[in-house]
């Protein structure tokens, strides 16, 4: 039972983080608070994806004993164990996702600044009242 919990509790922590972000996106009425919740949500998803790449007893995805440029001629002699290195593919995809996350953050904050310029408040209920 304890072994089961230790092998799974990481995912539960990520789900708790995602729930915190989701609650902030739904229930908070301030627009900047909603954006902070969106940031926490995205970070939790990225954390989950990176955690699927982890292998126990493996090292970073950087080749040991690499000869650098021109290694292609001698590389046949060297045997590379797949289980020795962490899976690099989720890292690459999540690198892209982090940059896209900051791009969405920038656009969202620009919209918030524009809304404040037009309505003079960041509270969602007051903005809806001002529109009507």
């Amino acid at each position, binding site marked *: 039972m304890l072994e089961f919990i230790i092998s799974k509790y990481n995912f539960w*922590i990520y789900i708790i983080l995602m729930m915190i972000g989701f609650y902030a996106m739904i229930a908070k009425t301030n627009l900047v608070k909603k954006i902070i919740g969106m940031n926490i949500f995205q970070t939790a998803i990225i954390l989950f994806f*990176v955690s699927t790449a982890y292998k126990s007893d493996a090292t970073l995805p950087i080749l040991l004993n690499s000869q650098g440029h021109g290694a292609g001629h001698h590389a046949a002699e060297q045997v590379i164990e797949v289980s020795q290195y962490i899976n690099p593919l989720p*890292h690459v995809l999540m690198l892209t996702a982090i940059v896209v996350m900051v791009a969405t*953050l920038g656009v969202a904050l620009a919209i918030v600044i524009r809304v404040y310029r037009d309505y003079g408040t960041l509270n969602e209920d007051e903005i809806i009242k001002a529109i009507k």
Partner: protein
Amino acid sequence: MILPFDIILQLFVIICAVAAITVKDLMSAVIILGAYSFFMCLMWAQMGAVDVAFTEASVSAGIGTILCIAAVMKTTRRTKD
């Protein structure tokens, strides 16, 4: 994976996330979000994803926090929740 280090980092991350959405001042919330990003960066470095950790520390904790601070300075710090 070092279990105590992992548990301490996850505890700090959850505390930072809860504090960032409950604090009553937007500037404090944004700074706590920067601290959250740095703890997340430590978690990734501890998981072996060093490139993701570099990108998070420079892009999300640096530029993201600066964008948030600029937005809060241009609008208002006060909030009701």
